[in-house]
């Protein structure tokens, strides 16, 4: 490579005569040098980062075991999403309508476009209604294990990201005060994030074990509550909190009649995340709040002090200063953390693998864990490839959506 990286020693590139020709030659040489410099990265990322995407798509068309297999065309996808195409089309259209409606509502914010806002609301409502009706049909005909893992992933994202954002910001605000020992606190709060996940998750495996003398159960005992199964508990937390069957009963009112596909599907949602997943969510809070705080501290430091001083002169109280200076100027940080957090949920593996118990696996396996076991335990490479591609499409969609919606609400400093 070094040969291509020779440089032009033109001492005066601004000579008028032959200038154009010299510049073209220089440019060619520069391009050659640049290509030589980027080639190791491009080659490696190309082979192990870009090509695999297409290769996965190819593998997903086969009944691929460890040494290749029969061509199935879309057979894996039919197993994953069910044989009927209509429910899938329905779900995609519903999501499209929800997004389009939401965008119209946003555009309708200025008074000249009031009618658009109402159209937007109508489209949004129609999309949401059909989503509620069609998704259960897709789930009923598809692979129930994969759809369960999808539900787990959504619960995991919903209960980790927002909590970590709020707690992280609160902690960051506290740690930017002039508090004694705040440097020590910063170090301590980051420890859970810094330590290797396999090891810290192993600790939580003991803290939240089903033994009556596990730490979690001893704390419950102090509150007069009898021991729970924690990481081994596949049951949803809603019935656990409000007595058996209450969650399902509220959703499926049709007394003796067998509940329809739609009602029984949403009843599963209504029972909430499994207690096992909630235990893993506690772990996630413990790990990530300090990390979110660190990122927020950086954002807070970047806010010019004069803004606060000026606001104070204008008589703005602390709450007002927080709402109209701190929060808007932190929005790029919040945007970044939200994106990172949601994508992180779809990528999360280590803690879910370590804290997984066979008894509660259905309640804690997210999509990425499902892909892993389909490959690792069942050796169904083709099917795992198909699931991972659907996962990729979901992450891609979410990323694009977040870029469109959240980025607009982001105020960049200066």
């Amino acid at each position, binding site marked *: 490579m070094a040969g291509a990286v020779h440089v032009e020693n033109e001492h005066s590139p601004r000579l008028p005569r032959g200038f154009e020709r010299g510049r073209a030659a220089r440019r060619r040489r520069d391009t050659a040098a640049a290509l030589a410099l980027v080639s190791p*990265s491009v080659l490696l990322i190309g082979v192990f980062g870009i090509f695999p995407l297409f*290769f996965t798509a190819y593998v997903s068309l086969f009944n691929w075991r460890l040494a290749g297999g029969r061509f199935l065309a879309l057979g894996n996808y039919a197993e994953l999403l069910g044989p009927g195409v209509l429910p899938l089309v329905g779900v995609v259209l519903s999501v499209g309508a929800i997004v389009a409606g939401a965008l119209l509502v946003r555009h309708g914010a200025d008074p000249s476009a009031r009618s658009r806002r109402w159209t937007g609301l109508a489209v949004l409502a129609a999309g949401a209604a059909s989503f509620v009706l069609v998704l259960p049909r897709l789930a009923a005909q598809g692979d129930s294990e994969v759809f369960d893992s999808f539900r787990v992933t959504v619960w995991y994202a919903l209960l980790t990201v927002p909590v970590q954002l709020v707690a992280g910001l609160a902690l960051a605000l*506290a740690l930017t005060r002039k508090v004694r020992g705040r440097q020590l606190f910063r170090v301590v709060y980051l420890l859970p994030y810094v330590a*290797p996940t396999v090891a810290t998750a192993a600790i939580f495996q003991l803290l939240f074990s089903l033994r009556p003398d596990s*730490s979690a159960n001893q704390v419950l005992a102090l509150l007069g509550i009898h021991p729970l199964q924690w990481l081994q508990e596949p049951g949803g937390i809603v019935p656990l909190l409000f007595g058996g069957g209450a969650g399902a009963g509220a959703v499926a009112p049709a007394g003796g009649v067998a509940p329809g596909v739609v009602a029984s599907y949403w009843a599963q949602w209504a029972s909430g995340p499994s207690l096992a997943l909630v235990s893993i969510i506690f772990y996630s809070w413990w790990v990530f709040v300090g990390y979110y705080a660190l990122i927020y501290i950086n954002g807070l430091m970047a806010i010019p002090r004069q803004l606060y001083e000026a606001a104070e002169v204008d008589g703005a109280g602390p709450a007002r200063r927080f709402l109209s200076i701190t929060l808007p100027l932190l929005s790029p940080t919040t945007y970044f953390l939200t994106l990172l957090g949601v994508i992180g949920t779809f990528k999360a593996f280590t803690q879910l693998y370590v804290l997984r118990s066979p008894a509660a696996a259905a309640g804690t396996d997210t999509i990425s864990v499902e892909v*892993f076991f389909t490959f690792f335990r069942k050796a169904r490479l083709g099917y795992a490839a198909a699931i991972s591609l659907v996962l990729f499409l979901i992450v891609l969609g979410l990323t694009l959506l977040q870029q469109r919606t959240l980025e607009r609400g982001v105020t960049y400093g200066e």
Partner: protein
Amino acid sequence: MGNEEGRVPEALAAALPRPRLTPARAALVALLAVGGLVAVSPFLYMASTSLKSLAETLTRVSPFPFQPDFWPKTPEWSNYAQAWTLASFSRYLRNSLVTAAVTAAAVGGTSCLAAYAFARIRFTGSRVLFSVLLATLIIPESVYLVPNFILVSRLGWYDRLAGLTVPFAANAFAIFLLRQFFAQVPREILESARMDGAGHLRSLFSMVVPLSSAPLFTVLFLTFLGSWNSLQWPLVATRTARWRPLTVGLTTFNSDAGPQNQLIMAGAVIAIIPVIVLYALAQKQFTEAIARTGIKG
């Protein structure tokens, strides 16, 4: 949340005596202390359990570090020796160390070269190429599991060091991060180097890299840590203890040790200590590295 002292300019604040202890401030410190206790107690639990006897892990238990039952009566240091011999931890440690060091060095090299080209040389297709590389960052690891396993097996790298390192030897995020900093090196410095006849490689390694040691440290550090902590790919890409890293060793050890919590915790301590030592030595760079990538990402 408004606390008047918080608004005193830094220079003035430094000259003032310690801030007054108002009830609000005391409450804040108390709250932070409770939170800090929550953050460290699991580590203390790990340390204390790793020093208990098997009987004590069953009878002397408490969730709170301020209760005597939380701690062992007499520390059983032999647990560590037992854990160490039960699993091939010395082998695993060496494997993790080599794998992480090789990966970090490779990423440092490849991304310095590429970042220099993207930041400092105007060439056709540079923007498109850069965006294509960056786009790979949103692809979840699960997508790579199947194709890269097939690829690595066909290359004969299954259960080999190459299989654990080569797929991760270049990283779009590292290129992105370094490019930001390489672009800030003043033009004049590079131009004067060129006048002296320095080629691109010379100006990269004698000018740009020394001026960007902090972000380069960040890249090396985070790559090392990422490799050290990775579990999913090594589970798939190793079969024997030959190159099996500590993470995989620890998870298999956990099932081998069965209900012997003291041994599992001793294993966890063994896995955590190298990282904590590194953190203690380079705490400032560590936080800066994480904060920097956080903000720039």
